[in-house]
């Protein structure tokens, strides 16, 4: 392996992350109670993105990993976003 030291995350951090994931899940349900029209989907997606970020960083250990892995994940997300944007070039302009 490379010279990055094995990082050990304390249980407490995992519990905090777990708790925040649960809170965010509840929030993404609660937000549908407010009348936001078409923005409620956007709201739910924002909560989901924050949750994804937490899972990737802590549970999947990305925060403590090599830079190259972060770049890979970043590129993959960029490709995904580009695919979604291009698909909507069809739906929005129809």
């Amino acid at each position, binding site marked *: 392996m490379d010279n990055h030291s094995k990082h050990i995350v304390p249980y407490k951090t995992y519990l905090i992350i777990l708790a925040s994931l649960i809170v965010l899940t509840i929030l993404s349900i609660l937000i549908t109670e407010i009348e936001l029209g078409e923005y409620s989907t956007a709201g739910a997606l924002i909560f989901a993105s924050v949750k994804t970020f937490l899972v990737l960083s802590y549970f999947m250990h990305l925060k403590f990993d090599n830079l190259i892995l972060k770049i890979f994940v970043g590129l*993959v997300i960029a*490709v995904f976003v*580009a*695919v979604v944007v*291009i*698909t909507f*070039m*069809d*739906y*929005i*302009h*129809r």
Partner: protein
Amino acid sequence: MAEPTINLEQSFYEVKNYKSPILNWILSTDHKRIGLLYLYSIMTFFVVGALLGLAMKLELIAPGKTIMEAQTYNAAFTFHGIIMIFLIIIPGLPAVFGNFLLPIMIGAKDVAFPKLNLLSWWIYVLGAIVALLSQVMGDGPPDTGWTFYAPYSFKTTSTVLPALIGAFILGFSSILTGLNFIVTIHRMRAPGMTWLKMPLFPWTLYATAWIQLLATPVVGITLLMVIAEKMFQIGFFDPALGGDPILFQHLFWIYSHPAVYIMILPAMGVISEVIPTFCQKTIFGYKAIIASTLLIAFVGYFVWGHHMYTAGMSDTALWLFSLLTFLVAIPSAIKIFNWIATLYKGSINLEIPLYWALGFLFLFMIGGLTGLVLGSVATDVYVHDTSFVVAHFHFVMFGGTGTGFFAALHYWFPKMYGKSYDNTWAKVGFWGFIIGFMMLYMPMFTLGMQGMPRRYFDYLEQFHGGNILSSFGAIILIASLAIVIINLVTSAKRGKKAPKNPWDGITLEWQVDSPPTLENFETIPVVEKGPYDYKK
């Protein structure tokens, strides 16, 4: 299991962990045996797929019914497509030659995850069996075409479900192979082999592996959505339930367009190995070929809409996809230029693998340039869903990937089996292939321009001439393929012993034994020179 005594100096064929010869193959985690397992499975399916293609061409030899009913014809082109796409050219070059040669070419003993590699083959077999079940179960074989377009795929009474599930399972095989290759290339290159000293076939496998990893899950989800739609009437794609059938086409082609680069990029890698070896000259524009490989893989994600120009997309999407499609043609052209510049003033040694590589250049260029006709919205609307599209696709996939596959087979055959093949028969097979190929597919361009639709089992009298030519081409093509395959099979059994390096290649695979030993190298080599540092 008795304690095996492994002699590291004998060929990998001699290594036996089990008493039963079959178990020695299907439970082996040796990358070379797994590559050959894929080769034998793929060639078996190829014979079936090719004979189905021949049957369709015989049906089209005259207007009206000749040898099969219309519904049989629908099932035949669907089965032909499913076999050729999902079982043959998607796994194709990476699974066969990637497995056999990638570790050797980068100076490693095996891939990063040998057990996962064996699992990929097992998943492939499972997926194949499930997909084949669709032919014998329920109310007749599927008739949707390999594209499973909504809403027809959940309206038809034919047995689509096993085919969908089979394709879904096959996707996992592809994803795992891609993952394995990415890790292998990142972590297992021999000392001294920097990224820019790596041969081009591993480079194309690397780009391909990323597409396998990122695009395949999309088709997995899409197929699951069709399955769910069929079983629970959810309303993703069915307009009657408020769904959008064009969404299916978006999702399907978001995978299936990058998938054509899964098919073609490794073939381009093979050509980039064959040409320098038979010119004894360094490749022209090594870095440009790498850059164009990565660019094709990247831009290839964003052009899927060119399959949907007539589906009812917005005008904005039409010009955007057309523009992006034209952009992706540029890196392919860079490669063609580099290969031709490599040939220029090389000491050309015209052997069978170079025949196939030149065949690739010729056929792939026709396929690529007719692709521009389809990439441009104005002309595509005119020839959409005609036999022009079928001809273009076969020129690129069969004339490109298929020819690249045969180039690889003839190039690395002495390494894989330690035997030489018969040159005369190989030449007869090659020329028959080119003649049959041109006769079969060229008329389909003209027929398409004249308006003959694809996927029809009958046609008007005005299309008769071109179809006769095309059907006879199919017969010549099948006969030549038989010559090629029989020549290789008999040579593998009875051929003369091949020298270690018959073509004077300088990449690492030519420095190991033919066939290689279990661990490929006695000591892991230290790489100092570039992959194509010939004297010239």
